[in-house]
């Protein structure tokens, strides 16, 4: 289940109803939603350390650039389902396949 990159950043999954996704579909179908989660402190570069130092010293205000974070680097296969009005829908890039600190 562990993705590449930082040791703490891993792929997790949760069993949901399609309606739980909040995308506006009316259906009783279900899915496994996979997501990336975990700390990325181990894999920080000098770039991230510099950002930390500069924002601490308020040298970059008002900006606050994002540090390394645990994100999908590949997505799961598409998901299709039939809604309550008998119309098919296909979701793309909705669920993670592989994670990394990027």
């Amino acid at each position, binding site marked *: 289940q562990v993705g590449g990159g930082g040791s703490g950043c891993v792929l997790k999954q949760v069993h949901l109803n399609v309606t739980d996704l909040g995308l506006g579909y009316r259906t009783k*179908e279900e899915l496994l939603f996979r997501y990336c989660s975990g700390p990325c402190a181990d894999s920080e570069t000098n770039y991230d350390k510099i950002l930390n130092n500069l924002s601490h010293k308020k040298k970059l205000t008002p900006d606050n650039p994002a540090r390394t974070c645990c994100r999908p680097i590949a997505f799961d296969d598409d998901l299709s*389902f039939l809604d309550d009005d008998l119309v098919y829908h296909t979701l793309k890039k909705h669920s993670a396949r592989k994670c990394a600190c990027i």
Partner: protein
Amino acid sequence: PAVTKENNCLNAAKACNLNDTCKKYRSAYISPCTTRVSTAEVCNRRKCHKALRQFFDKVPPKYSYSMLFCPCPSAPQSACLERRRQTIVPVCSYEDREKPNCLSLQESCKSNYICRSRLADFFANCQPEPRSLSGCLKENYGDCLLSYSGLIGTAMTPNYLRLSHLSVSPWCDCSSSGNSKEECDRFTSFFTDNRCLKSAIQAFGNGTDVGVWQPVPPV
């Protein structure tokens, strides 16, 4: 048991999407079968048929048959029956502007080697036999279901008819058959009124082991 509100076809779809292989090949046919290619055409039928054949080739029958042969109550227009009819995305894979004569459809099937061999398998493996307990000449429901599902994605793609809960037919009829009316009726009744096929579908729905049909020993 009391009347259940379980929708077996919905349960089969849920199970499919929780299995990586079934989910992948399901969306791999639903995408081309539901993507409009021009104002005139609802989809690319050739791509839809190819992806449907792949689905039944690659996905374990445990998942694919559960969607195609899910048992539904016979009440017309139930959500279960409607969902089962939609399994193959009939608007693309099945329905057409015109309904050809079944014998001419059979001729065009014979001109394609996949369709020709799959239709021959279907006629061989789902041959009814009134004197047999199973209803079939070859007492193997698994082979009959396999050859029926093998027709999906060919010119002979069959689907459940709207008005009856176990009758199936390819998209054709026997109007304008001329002198071949009887031959045409025989052809269509092999789909619409085939006791072997109906028993095989029902046995799958009841959870009877379809791979090994064992005749009941004489009492």
